Structures are given as C-alpha cells and as structure tokens.
C-alpha cells in the first residue's frame, strides 16, 4: 500500500521534472502529447481493457472534444478550461447515445460500428463548411487561462496536462475498483454470470462507452488548445488504431499498461521520423508483431512472469485480459 503510493509519488515527481531536463521545447511538446494520449487511452482502456468491448472509434471522441472546445472558446466568452470540460461532457453524452444501439453487437461488428462512428465524425468535420472550416480546419484556438495566468508556452501547458493526467488517472483507479468498475470487469470475465447477479450487461457497456467518451473528449480538447490548430486529417481511423495499439502494447486492463504503451509508441514514432515513409510501414509490422508475440502487452507479460496474483483488491485491478 505505502510502497504503491511511493511509486505513484516518484512517477509524478519524475514527470514534473521533465521540462527541467528537456533540451528543447519540442521535447516538452511531445511530452504534452504523451500526457494527452494517456488521458485518451485511459478512457479507451475502460471499454477495451476493463469491459472487454472492441472499440475503434476513439478518434471520433477525440475529434468531438477538439472541435467543441475550439469552437466554444473562439465563438463564446466561456473560459477555455470550462470549454474543455463541456467538450468532455458532450463527447460523453454522444458516446452514450451511440453506444445504446451499438453495444448489442459483438466482435468485428462492434469494431465496424465504432469505425463507422469515427469516420462519420471525421467526414462531418471535413464537410462542415464554415462551421468546422472544412479541410483547412480551425486555427488560432486560444490558450487556456486560470485566474489570469495564461498557459501560453509548452512549459506551463505541460504542467496543466500533468495535473489533469494525475486527476483523471486517480478517477480511473477509483472507478475501476468501484461498484461500477467491478461490473465492467464482471461483464468482461463472464457476461452470463454478471447478468445473473443483477448486472444489466447492456447498461454497463453503455456506461463504459460514456466514460470513454469523456476521457476522449477532454483529450481532444487539450490537444486543440495545445497546438492551436485542428483539421480533420488528425482524426482519422489511423489515429484510433494508434490509440488502441498503445493500449495493447502496454497491456490493456492495467494501470501502468496504457501509460507505458503511450510513452513507448510516441517515442518510437519520433525515432522512426527520419525514415519517412518507412516509419509507417515499420509501424504496421510492429502492430502485427505485438499481436503475434505479446498480445497481453508489456504489463501482461510482467504480471504473468512475476505473478501479481496477489494484487491487493481495491488497490490495483488484476492484470491483463485473459483468454
């Protein structure tokens, strides 16, 4: 228990020191992106890792969050941070609405519906005319402000993201060990028995997608205010695949998995940058390799090797997805 808190504290401290040691602003920008991706992937993991549902529509929520917050902050006087929250909530509600009919489907049909959802959102953004800016997208998105302090440079923005990452991971950890979190894992492990114990499988899946929507929306909003410019191409299916790959590589259904996966894949992408077109081809091969050789991800391997069977209940969700 205490050692666990110590690990958390050390991880936060290490993250907080990143801007101090980072050589340049570009590295800090990448770290901001890592933080944002961690938020998105945390939501994704609720649906995929904890509830056992396939989802490839994460970029859709990411887009809804980005466009909502960008449009609100440009066209209204609502404080930017409040726009971020509203964006998250709107994305969450849309997640709920889409999930209601969608979660009756399983496997690749659910995959297809979530892809369809993501593509529809992207195409709407692309063809939204003046409202969404079409192909050009939206630029000059304002920076967040708190009590007169503007998070204008990547240094301050990094700390804003860090605070939100910590808050949202705290929320995730609370949720997955709560009554609702147990119902997520119950439908994943054995939906028949879950139903026999009063868990409404359909509602539980909808709840998971609602949570995913919130995290995805907040992530998208933070992205929009970070780079100050959004366009539809950012929110393609490739982005959804990228998110899911991060979660899978790190290890779905675990606390550290999505964090580790996000950091590794983002760094890998940066390292592959000089290879140009090869970058994406190698990335494709890496996905296949991960699926073949470590489908439970890094945390899944760590846990099965060093056996965290004794993970204290209520502290850490049991590792990896099984079978």
């Amino acid at each position, binding site marked *: 228990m205490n050692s666990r808190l110590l690990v958390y504290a050390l991880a936060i401290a290490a993250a907080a020191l990143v801007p101090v040691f980072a050589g340049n602003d570009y590295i800090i920008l990448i770290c901001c992106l890592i933080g944002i991706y961690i938020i998105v992937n945390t939501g994704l993991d609720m649906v*995929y890792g904890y509830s056992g549902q*396939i989802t490839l529509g994460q970029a859709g929520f990411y887009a809804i969050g980005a466009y909502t917050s960008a449009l609100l902050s440009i066209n209204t006087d609502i404080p930017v941070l409040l726009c971020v929250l509203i964006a998250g909530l709107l994305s969450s509600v849309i997640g709920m609405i889409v999930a209601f*009919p*969608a*979660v*009756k*489907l*399983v*496997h*690749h*049909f659910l*995959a*297809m*519906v979530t*892809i*369809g*959802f993501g*593509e*529809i959102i992207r*195409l*709407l953004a*692309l*063809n939204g005319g003046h409202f969404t800016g079409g192909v050009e997208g939206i630029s000059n998105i304002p920076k967040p402000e708190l009590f007169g302090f503007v998070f204008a440079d990547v240094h301050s923005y990094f700390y804003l993201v860090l605070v939100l990452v910590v808050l949202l991971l705290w929320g995730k950890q609370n949720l997955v060990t709560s009554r609702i979190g147990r119902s997520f894992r119950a439908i994943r492990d054995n*939906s028949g028995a879950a139903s026999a114990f009063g868990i409404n*499988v359909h509602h539980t899946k909808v709840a998971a997608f609602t949570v995913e929507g919130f995290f995805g929306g907040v992530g998208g909003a933070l992205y929009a205010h970070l780079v100050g410019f959004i366009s539809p191409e950012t929110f393609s*299916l*490739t982005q959804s*695949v990228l998110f*899911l*790959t991060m979660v*899978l590589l790190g290890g779905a259904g675990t606390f550290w998995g999505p964090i580790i996966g996000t950091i590794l894949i983002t760094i890998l992408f940066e390292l592959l940058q000089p290879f140009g*077109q*090869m*970058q*994406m*081809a190698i*990335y*494709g*091969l*890496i*996905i*296949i390799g991960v*699926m*073949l050789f470590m*489908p439970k991800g890094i945390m899944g391997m760590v846990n099965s090797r060093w056996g965290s069977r004794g993970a204290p209940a209520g502290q850490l969700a049991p590792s990896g*997805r099984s*079978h």
Partner: protein
Amino acid sequence: MQLFLQMVMGGLTVGAVYALLGMGYSLIYRASGLLTFAQGEYFMLGAFVGLTFFVNMGLPFPLVLILTTAVMVAIGFLSEKVIITPLISRGSKPIHIVLATIGLAIFLQNLAMLVWGSRAFTMPTIFDDMPVFIGSVFIIPQNIAIVIAMLVLMGGLHLFMNKSRAGLMLRAAAQDRMAASIVGINVPLAIGLTWGISVGLAGLAGLLIAPVHGVHAHMGLLVGLKGFAAAVIGGYGSIYGAVIGGILVGLVETFTSGYISSNFKDVVVFAFLLLVLFLKPEGLIRSEQIDK
C-alpha cells in the same frame, strides 16, 4: 429520367467493386470466422500490380488479368499462412486478429507508397474512351465491362464452389474443420486458398476500376470499408448477399452524390451501414454477431 438512369449505371459500377470486395469478406468469414481490414489494401495492390504489368511492362491485357490474379491469390495465400494461421494457433482473440490485419493494411499501404510513390497514376483502358449511347443514356464501355466482369466472376465462383471438387473441399473446410480433415481434406490448404480467392477478387476489382478512378496508394481504405458495408448489408457470410449489398451501397452512394452532394456520400453510406446494423441485425445478417 436520363440523369436517373445515368446514376443507376454509375451506382452499378461502383457497386460491382464493393460487391467483389464484399464477396471476399464473406468467403473469409465463412472459412475463418474472421474479419480482415486489409481487403481495401489488396484492392489497391491489385490496381498497382496490374498497372505495372500493363503500363510498365507493356503486357497484353488478357495476360495482365491472369498474372494480376495469380499474384494476388498468392499474396492472399501467403497473408493467411504468415499472419492469420500463427495468430489462430496461438489462441488469439478476434480483436488481436482484427488489429493484426489493420497492421497489415498500414504496412501494405506504405509499402505501396515506397514502391510506387504517393502520386496518382492513370491506367489506360483497353476499351474505347468514347461513351456509347443506349437510347438517351450514354455509358462508358469500361463501366459495362466492370459490371459484366462482376457477374461473370460471381457466376464462376458459384460454379467453382458448387460444382468443382476443389470448391467442395473449400466449403467442407469452412463448415467443419474437424470433419473435413477426418475425410482427408487438407484444411490448411483449403483455408489458405479461400483467402487467396478473396484477395484475388479484391485485386481484380482494383484492376478493373483503375482506368475509371485512377491508381494511388490511398485508394483502398474507404473502398475496403464500403466493401465490408456491402457484406454486412447483404448478409454477412453470404456471397450473393454481398453482391446485393454491394449494389445497394453503390446506388445509395451515387444517388446521394447526385441528389444531395458528393461531400456527404460517404457519411450517408456509413449511416446506412450503422442503421442496418442497429435496426435489422437479425433480419439482414446472421445471428452470431448479436450479444443477447
């Protein structure tokens, strides 16, 4: 009326392409119970391979057709052996296989860009460019060729699957692996061949549509998704359903372009797909994908 008929013809042409891909999805689903997301990239690859044979090497078109088909069948067979079989033998879950095929799709698309570059190519047609007038409707010969080719392929596939020994072997292997191997059918070969045929169909579709739509590395993604939509709408796992679904998707797309705006044709197609999945999951498709 003239515009209407024009659009029907256009819808049939793209519909035929979706149908060819959809047939592939259905075959693979029946053989392996799986979804592949690489179908669109095989379609793209078919166009590039055909382009290389036809333009770069200057081979006669019939030979191009045969060679392209052979290459694509081989690629499909290899994909199954190198990626899918190992995944299944490791007991992977459907999502892992789905993601692996997405990885494959990403790889193929970028490989194509490495080999052929990212610009769009035009593919000469062997038919006359001049539209033919039938009554008051003018029709591009290539479009008719595509629709006819689709019908021929469908008929051929039907005969192959139902009348030939090899087809019987494929159907038996798809239906019950255990029983098929007991009666002496080489199941791994049969499953691999089924993938080969599916990929061959996608590649042929790419080659056939190339003179109309051009050839470029990004041509596969949307077509692949719409081919899947065709398979689902027509009845997933049914080869003839995929044809009906493909034509439906093609018509919906063309009519949306014609009467609303071509900007929204893809949105409408996806909305159509979602609507079918939400409202008629049992009516139009088999019941396996429903979670009580």
